């Protein structure tokens, strides 16, 4: 009962935010939501099937550039379709990458994803006839029907709407057969395989869905940020996403959102102390692994049990 009240209050806050907060904080809230979607996608891969990825910035880049280029060259396409296309293309790339990597074990996979992230940004950089390469690409304003999403508030509502849908889908995943299979794989891949769960198939699905989520987030990211350059989608951005799910709690949906919020706000408030930022994040990672391995979600669960 209390959970439903909390959810309702959160929903009201979400809906009313642009009326309560100054312009910059509306942008920041949009960014938190976008990062939450990426964290959800990453958690699907890493939290459930133990395939840790250090290359998700690459997926974000694919989604962002796809959405930006589609809006630039085909402005008649409604923004929702553009986002879906961004997600779909990213999912295809994710599958193309994930399938051959199925037989790689944890460590090798992690390094392969790191390499993947880099190769993607290099490709975007070199396709400069299309993407304007190192100079960067200005993202045109998104259009919903005839209405141009030209303000931070308008874009915020687009982001919030899409995020709520994707969060609901992820939360429901646990109840489906796919969700249960993923949970089984997380507990013990070998036991799951022995129980008849087609591990390879589900790991592939996880890759695809994770990429899809991140691709859609990439499209939203492009619209709210307004300008893209490949050098921003570097390994440090991928590491930021990893920090989000570690801090939030591996395999937890609310954890992904909380982790995204914590990291985004921290990242922004340390903008004047950029030199300290990696130190803070590094120490957070170490402290989390040593003292709070379940992340905030795990901590919250422990509190709830008391």
């Amino acid at each position: 009962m209390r959970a439903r009240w909390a959810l309702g209050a959160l929903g009201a806050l979400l809906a009313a935010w642009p009326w309560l907060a100054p312009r910059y904080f509306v942008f920041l809230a949009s960014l938190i939501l976008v990062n939450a979607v990426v964290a959800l996608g990453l958690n699907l891969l890493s939290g459930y099937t133990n395939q840790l990825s250090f290359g998700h910035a690459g997926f974000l880049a694919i989604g962002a550039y796809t959405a930006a280029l589609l809006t630039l060259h085909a402005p008649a396409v409604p923004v929702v379709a553009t986002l879906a296309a961004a997600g779909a293309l990213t999912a295809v790339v994710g599958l193309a990458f994930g399938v051959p990597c199925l037989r790689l074990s944890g460590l090798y996979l992690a390094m392969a994803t790191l390499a993947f992230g880099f190769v993607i940004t290099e490709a975007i950089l070199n396709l400069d006839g299309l993407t304007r390469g190192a100079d960067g690409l200005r993202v045109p304003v998104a259009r919903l029907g005839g209405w141009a999403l030209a303000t931070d508030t308008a874009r915020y509502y687009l982001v919030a709407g899409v995020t709520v849908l994707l969060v609901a889908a992820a939360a429901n995943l646990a109840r489906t057969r796919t969700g249960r299979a993923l949970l089984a794989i997380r507990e013990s891949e070998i036991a799951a395989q022995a129980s008849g769960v087609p591990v390879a198939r589900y790991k592939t699905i996880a890759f695809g869905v994770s990429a899809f989520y991140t691709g859609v987030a990439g499209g939203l990211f492009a619209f709210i940020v307004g300008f893209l350059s490949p050098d921003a989608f570097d390994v440090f951005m991928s590491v930021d996403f990893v920090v989000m799910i570690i801090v939030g709690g591996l395999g937890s949906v609310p954890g992904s959102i909380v982790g995204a919020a914590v990291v985004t706000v921290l990242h922004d408030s340390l903008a004047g102390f950029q030199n300290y930022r990696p130190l803070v994040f590094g120490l957070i990672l170490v402290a989390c692994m040593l003292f709070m391995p379940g992340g905030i979600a795990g901590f919250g669960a422990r509190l709830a049990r008391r």
Partner: protein
Amino acid sequence: MTTAALVHVIVSGLATGSVYALMALSLVIIYNATRTLNFAQGEMLMISTFVAWSVQQTFALPLGVILPVAVLAAAAVALVFERLVIRRAIGATHWDVLIITLGLSLALRAVAGLAWSHDEFPFPSFFPGRPIALGPVRVAPVSLGIIGASLALMLALAALFRWTRLGRAMRAVAQNQRAARLMGISVERVYSLAWVLAAVVGAIAGVLVAPVIFLSSKMGLIVINGFTAAVLGGFGSMPGAVLGGMLLGVLENLAPLYLPSGIRYSVPFIVLIAILLVRPAGLLGRIEPRKV
């Protein structure tokens, strides 16, 4: 492309390749003993090189102190970190240690930026800059120096592992931890020693390569080349690490000559992906069957 120019390029490639080989060796040393990957290997190398350089500059000491100070600094950082942090996570999976070392690498890089700024600094070279002429071919002394020093170090390591008690203990722990413990080997001590040894190798690599790539807080990224070299040669195999390193160095130097120049930075990543997809065991490794 004249033969002389080609030889020069290949020798340069072997030089950077030797440094990658040393990097790979330090990763493999830790992995073999502890079954974990140290993401922070590059940053540890970077910090120890910076400390050595600072000490030499501040106290106006002769260049010869750089190497021993770097080695000492590296050993100290490794020991502190291994004892304070890694030990605590002794029951953890290799995931957790990976994440912890990732956190450490971020923190170390930030500390370097705070202490010395994120700028690039010229690093004194022990070798003169003017090229040596061997017939029509011109070779840079720094390249020859790096290759020579690296080979000497690799031979020393090989001797250590084959003929000393410590080396045998480390090999025993790498093969079977429980059996080693039953034989009276202190696994904890081997862990610490593996970290220190790896850090020392890294420090030497750092001092060798800094004159070529400039001393800066992002020097640590060389760990990616080291990892690729190790995988290329067969992760876990020391001769493989050496072979992989040399090969990667030469490939990196040859690729931009025959392909668009920008490809250089993609080479380690493309090689990594290619090897993992085609032959994950690497050139000299073997796939070990997983016991369930």
